[in-house]
C-alpha cells in the first residue's frame, strides 16, 4: 500500500477541518500546484504552453485548468504507477469515442474522506445510518467506475447493515428485490435511501408505471440520482424527471438530491433537493469553482453563462484544476448546472464534430 506523504497527511487534515479561509484554500492549492508542476511532466509542459511557471501562480484561480479530454490523451499522475493503484475511468459514452479518460489513485484515503465528510453533511443531513438501496453495479462488477466505488462507500459507511442492498448487476436490475425492500421500508416506517444513476431511476419509474403501482416511502426517505441518462434510458426534462420520481416513490422533491460528480474529480457537488430546477449545486470547503470563457480561460463577467472550472484539492495525484464541458451560471450559494456544452450543431450546413463522431462511431 502506498505511504501517506506529508502533503497528503496535511491534505487529510485540511479536509477534516470545519471550513477554511480564502488564504488557507490558496495556500493548500499552491502547495499542491507546486507538487504537481514538479512531479507531472505533461502538466508542466501544459503550464509552460500557457505561459505559467511555478512562481506565477498566486491564487487557485491562476492555476491553468486542464481540459478533461487530457485525461484521455496523457497519464496525468504524480506518483509512478504501482500495483495497488485504483484507476477510475470515464464511461466514454458521451461522445461515442473509444478512448476513456483515466484518473489514477495511488491510495483512496483522500477520495474516501472527501466523499464521506461531504456525504454525511449533504445527503445524510445528520442521520447516522439508514437502510439503503443502490441502483448501480458494485465495485466488484465495475472496478474502474468511480461511481460504483462512491456508492459502495455510501452503503458501507452510511447504510444500515443488513438492510442495505445493491439491486443492479451487469445483468440487469432486480426489480422484485427492490419492490420487496421498498415494501419493507413502507411497513417499517423508517426512512429509506435510494441511490443510483439517473437512468436507473427512469427504468424504475417506467417499470412502476407499467405495473400500475407506486410506493409511498416513509417521511425522511430520500433519493440521490447522478450522471444523467447517458443514452441508457428515455430522456426527460429535469422537471418531469423529479415530478415522476416523486410520484413513483412518494419522496418529496425537496428530498430528491442530485449529485454532480466527475471521474476526473475526487469531490462531489450536491444540491439541497430539487423542488425547483435547475437546483443550486455547491461543494465543500476543499473545492472551488469558477465560470470561464473556455478559449481564453478568463472568468466570465458576473451573471453570464460560462464553462465550469473546478479546483478540487482532493485531486492530489492528478491535477487540482480541471476545465469541464459543463455550462454553468452563478447562483446564490453555488452555481446552476445548465447542461453540457453541446448545441453547436445545426447552425449552418457544415458538418459539426458531434454529428461526425456519432456517424463514424455507428
Amino acid at each position: 500500500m502506498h505511504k501517506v506523504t506529508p502533503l497528503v497527511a496535511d491534505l487529510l487534515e485540511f479536509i477534516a477541518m470545519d471550513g477554511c479561509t480564502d488564504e488557507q484554500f490558496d495556500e493548500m492549492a499552491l502547495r499542491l500546484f507546486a507538487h504537481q508542476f514538479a512531479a507531472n511532466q505533461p502538466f508542466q509542459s501544459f503550464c509552460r504552453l500557457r505561459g505559467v511557471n511555478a512562481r506565477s501562480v498566486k491564487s487557485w484561480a491562476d492555476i491553468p485548468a486542464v481540459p478533461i479530454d487530457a485525461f484521455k490523451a496523457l497519464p496525468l499522475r504524480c506518483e509512478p504507477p504501482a500495483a495497488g493503484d485504483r484507476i477510475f475511468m470515464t464511461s466514454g459514452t458521451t461522445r461515442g469515442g473509444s478512448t476513456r479518460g483515466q484518473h489514477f489513485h495511488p491510495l483512496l484515503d483522500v477520495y474516501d474522506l472527501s466523499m464521506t465528510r461531504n456525504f454525511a453533511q449533504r445527503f445524510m443531513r445528520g442521520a447516522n445510518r439508514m437502510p439503503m438501496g443502490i441502483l448501480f453495479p458494485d465495485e466488484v462488477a465495475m472496478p474502474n467506475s468511480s461511481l460504483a466505488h462512491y456508492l459502495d462507500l455510501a452503503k458501507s459507511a452510511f447504510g444500515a447493515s443488513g438492510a442495505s442492498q445493491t439491486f443492479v448487476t451487469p445483468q440487469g436490475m432486480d426489480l422484485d428485490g427492490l419492490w420487496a425492500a421498498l415494501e419493507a421500508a413502507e411497513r417499517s416506517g423508517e426512512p429509506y435511501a435510494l441511490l443510483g444513476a439517473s437512468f436507473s431511476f427512469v427504468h424504475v419509474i417506467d417499470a412502476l408505471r407499467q405495473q400500475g403501482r407506486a410506493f409511498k416511502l416513509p417521511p425522511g426517505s430520500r433519493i440521490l440520482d447522478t450522471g444523467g441518462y447517458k443514452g441508457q434510458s428515455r430522456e426527460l426534462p429535469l422537471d418531469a424527471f423529479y415530478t415522476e420520481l416523486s410520484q413513483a416513490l412518494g419522496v418529496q422533491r425537496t428530498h430528491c438530491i442530485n449529485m454532480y460528480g466527475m471521474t476526473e474529480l475526487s469531490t462531489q457537488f450536491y444540491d439541497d433537493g430539487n423542488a425547483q430546477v435547475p437546483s443550486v449545486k455547491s461543494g465543500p470547503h476543499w473545492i472551488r469553482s469558477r465560470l470561464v470563457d473556455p478559449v481564453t480561460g478568463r472568468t466570465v463577467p458576473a451573471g453570464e453563462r460560462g464553462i465550469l472550472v473546478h479546483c478540487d484539492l482532493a485531486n492530489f495525484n492528478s491535477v487540482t484544476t480541471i476545465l469541464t464541458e459543463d455550462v454553468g451560471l452563478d447562483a446564490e450559494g453555488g452555481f446552476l448546472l445548465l447542461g453540457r456544452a453541446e448545441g453547436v450543431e445545426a447552425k449552418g450546413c457544415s458538418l459539426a464534430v458531434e454529428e461526425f463522431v456519432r456517424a463514424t462511431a455507428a
Partner: protein
Amino acid sequence: MTTARIRAGYLPGLDAAEVDWQVLPFAQGDQALEVEVPVLSAAQMDALAARVRQASALHLKTMAVSEIIAVIDQAIARLLDRSDPYRQQAEAYLPVVSGYDRDMVRLGLTGFFKTFRAAQLHRFVAEDFANPKVLDGFQPTPKGGAVRAFGPDLLVHNWAGNVPALALWSMVCGLLVKAGNIGKLPSAEPLFAGWFARLLAEVHPPIADCFAVVWWRGAGDDGASALYAQADAVLAYGGNEALDAIRRRLPVTTRFLPHGHKLGFGVISATALDTLKAPAIARLAAWDVMRYDQQGCYSPHVFYVQRGGAVSPRAFAGYLAGELANLHQRFPRRPLEVEDLAAVARWQQGVEWQALSASAEGPADQLIGASSAAWSVAYSDTLQPLAPTAMQRTIQVVGVDALDDVVPLVAPHSRFLQTAGIAAAPAELFRLAGLLGAVGVTRISAIGSMSAPEAGWHHDGRFNLLDLVRMTEIEQSAELAAEPLAPYAD
C-alpha cells in the same frame, strides 16, 4: 437596447388573426429583434396546401419558363439594389438573426444574388435540360415521339441553418419547374424566405398564391404531418438524423431529396507554392474560411498542402494565419455562445495535447497564433484524416508528400464529401479530380471560390431541376397511331 418586431412567413389566403404566432428572440450587441413565426394547425396547413397547389396549376404552370425567369430576375434586381426596401431590411436584420458581421452579410448577399439573374437562370435551366422548352410543352425526342417535363404540384422545402438567404436556392429551383412551393423556415434564419415570397408577389401579383412560407418547432407536429402528407416532393436540409426523421414521415411514393451536412477540404499542390503564388493562395483560402464563419456545406475544414515547393506547408499555414488575422479586422467573427466557445476550446486543446504527447518524437503539431484569437490554424506535419474542426474560423493545415496521399484520407467519409478546393496545374487538377470524384467529391472549385458556388452547380452532385420533375413521354407508337384518327385522314 432597441427591440424591433417582425412578422415572418408568407401565408396567402390565411387570416393572420386566426394563426398562432410564436416569438423567436434574437439579439446582437445593442440590437434586439423579435421574429414572429406562424404555427399552423393541420386544417390551416391543408387549406394552404390546397390553395398553393391550385394557384400554381392556374398561374405558374401556364407561364413559360422564360417568363418565370423574367419575374425572378426582376425580384433579384431589387435585392441587388441597395436602395430597395427589401434589400435594406435584409442588410439590417439578417446580421442580427445570424450574428454574422454586417459587411460579410452585405458582400455575401450581393455575391449570392448575382448568381440568380436572368442570364444565370437560363444557364441553370440549360444545365439540366438540353432543350429547356420541355418545361413548357412536348418536344420531339431523337428516338422519336415527344417528351415533356412536369414539376411537382406541391414541393415542400425544409430549410435549415443560419446561412443567410440559403432558401433562395431551392425556392428558385421549385419555381423554375413550376411547382407550388411551401417552405418551412429555419429557426436560425427565419426571415429571408418570407421576404422573397412577398417580393415575388409584388413583382408579379398573379403568382402571389403559388407559394407559402411556414414554420414549426423542431420536427413539427400535426401541421407538419399534414403538409408532408400532401407533398409530391420534399427537399430537405439538415443533419442526417433530422433528415432520416423526415424521411420516415413520408409516404413511400413521395420523392425525397435530402441535403445533409458536408465536410469541405482543400488541396494545394507544390506547383502553387512559389514565393509569389503561395501568399495569394493563402489569402484566397482565408476568404473561404472566413465566409459565414465556415458554416456553409462548402466551407473548408482542412487544407492538405504538398511539400517540395519553395514555400513549405508550415510556412503556408503561417500565411493563412496572417490572412485570417487581417480578415478578422475587416469582417469580425460573430460573437460566440458559450457552447460554440467550448467547441473551439476543445478543438484547440485537442491539438495542444496531441502536441504535448508527441513532443518527444519527431515534429510536433502546432497551434499557430494566440489561442484566444478569433481564428485558429492548426498545423500538422503528419498525415491527418479528414475531420471537422470546430468551425468559427478554425482550420487544420496538413503537410503531405504527394497529392495522392489525400485520397485515402478523405475516402472513408464519402457520405460527407461535397466540395474540394484545388490549386494545381491543369494535368494535376484533372487527375486529382478523377481520384476525388471517385471517392465522393461532387464539386471542385478554385481555392477562394469554395464558398461561392457558381450558378447552375449541381448541389451534392445531383440535378437540381431534373430531380424535381417527372417526364411524360409520348411514344412514337402513340403518335403514329394517332395519325389515322385525324379528321384529315384519308
